[in-house]
Each structure stands twice: as structure tokens, then as C-alpha cells.
């Protein structure tokens, strides 16, 4: 099959998803894409073409002279003020970016929201925002967004939400590769239109703090080793992403970095209704429990496991390095 022609535009975001993409786990980034049949029509950080040449390319996409296979949008769509879109004009055109995006989405085979800003509005759409920011097909968790809930791209798919703040480079590359080889269908998207290959996982899976979680041995301040769910606002048991099994930048993740998962792949994460680094509780019990666990069970298990916490786990939970190592037994393991 021929190349998958990808056009990438940025709107109300920080550019971090583009920068993240360059961290994809490969010794030859350009070859990874090229050998997968992925060809940039234009990417703002990587392409030589500037100014007039870019505008001509956009017109060619709209006229059909240039096939547009994938339209990738990074950043929120800024509809303000008063729906005019003037908070972001595409440079050199005097035309709001939201107008360009609407028209280009109309001719694209696939439309991909790269990152949580483009998917849901993200941090750009945080409470008090003046920019009327939204995602391509959602505004937080409400379907609609810039293109409307009924939108389907040329190939019949809704917007593909590769959410995350930033999004993981592997999620983007895998999505583009799946589109290039024709293996991504509507069934491969979850109820929020995220690719299931990463959204069917939880951040909790593979968390190095799982032993602390089991015993509810909790961190009390930044740099503590314990579980961050009870006091530090961690949402790893509820957040859909594979961050602790598909690591970031070689060997990292938020929880491995010593800070709470803020569930940045979920709509509305930017306004959790509490401080990011605190766990809201009722009668001492966290409100945000694992979604598929009955509360009574959680309370019962937590009190049992707390009473059974080994001294090693309890001590290390509030230290920044291992204070009590596992016992080296004198007898062989059985």
C-alpha cells in the first residue's frame, strides 16, 4: 500500500506532545516512521517548508490535489472570544485555526487528537479559562467539541483520542502505524474513543509501589516511597493508561518519579475538585477508590492489611530510600 500522509497542526497547547513524540523509543526515529509507511505532509517542528509553501499545501489538501490521510491536531481548539476563534489565528492567514481545522477535518480519512488538550480541552480548558477551549470531539467528558458528536472522518471513524498530558510517544507511533497498516477499527477504541491498546490498562498495573498499596503503607510527603493513593492524591488505580508497564523516557513514570498520578489521560483531569496532591476523604476513607471494587470490601481489606503490615514495608513507606531491606534468610526458600 502507499504512504500514509500525515498533517500535524498545533493549536491551544504547549507543544509538549510534539516534543514527547521525539522521545519515541527508537535509535532511528525517521526510519521507524518511514519504514512504517508514514510520511509527513508537514509537521511544525520538523518540516523545512515555511510560510507560503505551507499555505499552498493546506490549500492542496482542501482541494483534493493532495490526499490527506491523517489530520493530527495537538492542543485545544480555542473558540473564543465569543466563538470568533480570534484567540488563535493561523499565522500568515488571519483565519482562525478552528476554521482551518473544521475544513481540513472534512477532507481527512482519519482525524487524531494528539494529547488531552486536543481530545478534551485539557489544561487549556481548565476552570476559569477565558479561551472557550475544547477538544476536537469532546469538551471534558461531554461529546461534541469543535467537530460535533456526529462527526466521522472519511474512513468512517470518530476522532481518535490519543489522550495524555503529554501523550506518550509510543501511543502516537502505535496509532499511526495501525492506521498505516489498516488495523485500527472502531472496535479498537474505548468508550472515550481512545485506542484500547493503552486505554484498557490502568496506571496502577506495574506500579513499583504495589507492595505498599497492598498493605496501605502510605507516603506522607514528596519523596516518600509508600503508596500515594491514601494521602497524596494518586489516581493510578482509576486512570486508564499503561504508564507503569510501557515506561516513559526509558525507565520513568509519574509514580516512579515520586509524585501522584493525576489521571492526565482522563477528561476533566485538570479540575479534580481538590488539590492535585491531596486525597479527598470521607470519614478517613478516600473517595476515589478503584472503580471496580465495592467500598465495603476496600474498607475491610484495608483495615486488615494495615494491621498486618510488615515492619519493613511500614518503615520504608515514609522514607526516601530503603531503610529496612528484605530479610536475607539463612535457610533456602521453600
Amino acid at each position, binding site marked *: 500500500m502507499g504512504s500514509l500522509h500525515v498533517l500535524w497542526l498545533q493549536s491551544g497547547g504547549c507543544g*509538549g506532545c510534539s516534543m514527547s513524540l521525539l522521545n519515541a523509543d527508537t535509535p532511528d526515529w525517521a526510519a521507524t516512521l518511514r519504514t512504517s509507511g508514514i510520511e509527513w505532509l508537514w509537521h511544525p517542528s520538523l518540516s523545512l517548508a515555511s510560510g507560503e509553501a505551507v499555505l499552498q499545501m493546506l490549500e492542496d489538501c482542501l482541494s483534493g490535489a493532495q490526499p490527506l490521510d491523517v489530520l493530527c491536531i495537538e492542543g485545544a481548539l480555542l473558540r473564543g472570544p465569543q466563538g470568533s476563534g480570534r484567540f488563535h489565528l493561523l499565522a500568515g492567514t488571519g483565519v482562525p485555526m478552528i476554521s482551518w481545522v473544521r475544513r481540513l477535518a472534512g477532507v481527512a480519512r482519519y482525524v487524531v487528537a494528539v494529547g488531552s488538550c486536543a481530545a478534551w480541552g485539557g489544561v487549556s480548558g481548565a476552570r476559569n479559562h477565558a479561551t472557550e477551549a475544547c477538544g476536537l470531539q469532546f469538551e471534558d467528558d461531554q461529546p461534541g467539541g469543535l467537530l460535533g458528536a456526529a462527526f466521522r472522518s472519511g474512513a468512517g471513524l470518530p476522532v481518535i483520542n490519543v489522550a495524555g498530558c503529554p501523550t506518550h510517544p509510543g501511543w502516537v507511533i502505535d496509532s499511526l502505524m495501525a492506521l498505516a497498516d489498516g488495523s485500527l477499527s472502531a472496535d479498537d477504541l474505548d468508550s472515550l474513543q481512545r485506542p484500547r491498546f493503552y486505554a484498557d490498562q490502568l496506571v496502577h498495573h506495574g506500579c513499583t509501589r504495589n507492595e505498599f498499596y497492598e498493605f496501605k503503607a502510605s507516603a506522607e510527603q514528596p519523596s516518600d516511597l509508600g503508596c500515594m493513593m491514601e494521602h497524596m492524591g494518586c489516581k493510578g488505580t482509576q486512570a486508564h493508561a499503561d504508564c507503569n508497564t510501557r515506561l516513559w523516557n526509558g525507565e520513568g513514570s509519574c509514580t516512579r*518519579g515520586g509524585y501522584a498520578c493525576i489521571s492526565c489521560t482522563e477528561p476533566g483531569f485538570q479540575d479534580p475538585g481538590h488539590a492535585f496532591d491531596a486525597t479527598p476523604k470521607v470519614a478517613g476513607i478516600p473517595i476515589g477508590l478503584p472503580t471496580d471494587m465495592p467500598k465495603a470490601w476496600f474498607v475491610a481489606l484495608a483495615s486488615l492489611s494495615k494491621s498486618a503490615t510488615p515492619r519493613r514495608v511500614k518503615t520504608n513507606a515514609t522514607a526516601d530510600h530503603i531503610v529496612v531491606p528484605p530479610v536475607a534468610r539463612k535457610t533456602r526458600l521453600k
Partner: protein
Amino acid sequence: MSNTPTGRLLVGPFNRVEGDLEVQLQVADGRVASAQVNATMYRGFEQLLPGRAVRDALVVVPRICGICSVSQSVAAARALADAAGVTPPPNGQHALNLMQACENLADHLSHFYLFFAPDFTRPIYADRPWWPEAVRRWAALGAGVTQGEHARQALAARQRWFTLMGTLGGKWPHTQSVQPGGSSRAIDAAERLRLMSKLREMRAFLESTLFAAPLEDIAALRDAAALARWHAADPLRGDLRFFLTVADDLALAQLGAGPGRTLSWGAYPQPDAGLALAAGVCEHPSASPLTRQAPDVRLVTEDATHAWLADSGGPRHPAQGVTLPDVDKPAAYSWNKAPRLDGRVVETGAIARQLADGQPLITDVVQCHGSQVVSRVLARLIELARVLPMMERWLGAIVPREPFYTPDSLPDEGEGMGLTEAARGALGHWVRWRNGRLLHYQIVAPTSWNFSPRDAQGQPGALEAALVGAPVYPGERTPVAVQHIVRSFDPCMVCTVH
């Protein structure tokens, strides 16, 4: 000549910068007569932050920018630490410096290979003797089958380099391990060694491909004459010397003169107090010796006269700053305010840091040739050669099992300021809170200084003035000289339009 370019040119979208940029040029007789620089987007972070819990700033603020997010984090953490009166322990300070240096050096690398050098592969230069070699090394990665070999190698080196951030900060961009009291991620003994090996990998790339020389030899070049001798000895060997070859041929040192005044807030605080790169305001009027003095942060103002932002009350210090959109304002042409120091235009960036720190080569080059396209690029590359060995020392000074974090207790009310140096230059955050909720948050980013619009006095910003005199060749709609000048500042527009 009837085809000498004259008239108005609107240049955009301007890519291989971070974010959205448009430049409006008045061209007369084949030269830029005047320029207006427009940041074409408004995001409104200064409105998003008030009302939130104070520490939420540590989550929200890095998301101003995906290219210098650690610098934004450091500025925020330092502003909170300022108000709380907390200091990171030595390990924590080293960890923060390693993260910020990792990001800053990666930015210099990306800038050179991915953003700046590809312009030398444009067909307009196809008749130059160096052009095929420029294409082989530096062709852009974003289109077609021709992709520069060295650009590909640099991207691979960058990917490995950012694994430092995987360990030190959990992920990049948008780590949250940067805290007022240090780092939330302690490094153990084996990790310290693994990080050291990654510093050595980057050293190997720089010493083989970029410099083709030991870092210490580059940092030891004392003056413009020594640089010229080193260059002449093997003018194609390594990308720095090849760049100097191209720059000589194109007379790039004649392009893009800065305002003759630079500002650095200083970088990388050390546990025993002091900064690894000193702060300073430097003046270098032509034909006079360069002068240095300590910057006075009280003299910073932001002027919104030509921004689509409310400007009642005139220029304000950022501690009293206001950022409210006013989209129909007459005479406005950018979302960027105009920061000024004592009412004057300054340039910021690696060149400002190296001048403030008294680095001999950059000082001599600027005294001889001013701040311009070549000296800006050179300052970044010198910074790569100087800061990587510093990182080796900081990492070597980390003591496993000693603390990385000092607990802080933020007061219910507070006011603080956080100054630091992002790759592109001076970054400041000004914060105030009451009852544990943010009341006021203002950010003055490096590109806000460099790419500012005119102020109330009509003074053009640093880039606006630097573009005057740039050649526009017949038929050019996106003049290549303008591109070299704009990219020599390595703008970060998303920081600017926070």
C-alpha cells in the same frame, strides 16, 4: 532594478520555532525596513491559576510549555520556596539542576539540528559549494526521503539523553518531581552510576559529531582569533566547524544585530550558595568595552500598549501585573506584552548567560562582532561544552541515602518570586496567595523579552530591531535571511503566550 522587492510581506506560519509566530515586514529596496512580530495565540494561564490551591501551580505551570517545562517548574517551585523560606538539601539542588540542565542542553541540541540548520539545505543555496554536505548532514526530518544523517543521529542522542529525565523526574515533559524543597525522587547508588554513563553517552556524541573535539578544548577557546585558527585547521570536521564555514560564506555575522544589552537571571544555584552561571546585565555598545552589572529585578516592567491585553495604568511590575484580553484594542498586534528593564529593551538567552558569566570566547566574539546570528548559535554550543562537565560534577556530588527533599510548610498567605534561566533565557514567576488559594500569578518568559512588540515609547522589541536591514531577494515571500535571524533567537512562543 524593477524586481527589487518592495512593499509589505506577511510571513507565516513560521515553523521550527516552538509555537505560533507571524512576522510582518515592510520591505524597501530589497531590505527589511521595519518589522512587527506577532504571537498569534492566547492561552491565559495567568487567569487559570488564581483560585486554585497553591501547590496546584506545580502541576499547571509546567504545562505552559512542552519544550522548557522543567524551567517553568523550577521557576514556580522557587517562587513558592521564596515565600515559604525553604531551601532544598544539597542532593535535591543537584537533582533539580541536573533536570534543568538536561532540558536546556537538549533544547540547544534540538535547536541546532532540527530547527536552525535545516535552513541551509534550502534550494536557494544549491549553488554554494557546501550545499550538498549541508543536505547530507542537516536536511529536515519532516518531509521526503532526504533526511540529514547528523540530524537523525542528534535525535537519537536526544532520545537517550532524556532517559536521564525518566530516572530523575519520572517523565519529560511535565515532570512533577520539582518541589520547593527539592526533588520527590531520590537517586540510589546504582542509579547514580547509570546516570553517569548516560552523561558520557552525550559527551561521546558531542565530541564525535558536533565538535569533533573534547568538550574541554572547546570551552578553552579563549577568543575569536583562537576560534578562527581552530576552524581553519579543519573547516569541515564536526558540525560546529562546518557551521562556521557556512556562516562565513553567507556573512551571517552581519545579520540580526541585537540591542547591545543582555539579561541573565543566572542559573543552577549551588548548595554552598552562588550560581554555576552568574547573573548579569551586560552592555556592549559598538567600539566600547563590555560592561557587566547585577540585574535589578525591581526595574522589570511589562508594557501592554501593543498587545491585545488590557493596559490601564501603563507598564507594570509583574508583581502587580494584569493579563486580561482586550481583543479589539486599536494599535495592538500581538498577544505578547513588552517586558522592559528600566524601560529598555534587552536580549536574553545563552548569549546573555555566557556574557554574564564572563565566558572569554563569547565575550570576545560579542565585543568584536556584536550579538548576531553567529554569536547566538555559538553561545548555545559553548554552553553545551561547558554545562555537560558541570553536570558530571553535580552528579558526582550526589550522596545516596542523604535527603533529596526538605519538607516545607507553605504559609496560608504568601508572596514570592522565582527567577531562573530556561534555554532561551530569563524566566520569572511572580506569585501571591491568601487562605491557601492563588490570588496572583504572572509569568515573564524569555521569548517575551526577545519577541516583544513595541512599547509605549515606540521602541521595537529585540527581534523587531534585529530584522531591520535583512536582505529580501527577488521572488522571496518567506525570506531566508529573516528565517536565519528569527531562528537564531530560538523562540518559544508557547511560553510567550502562556
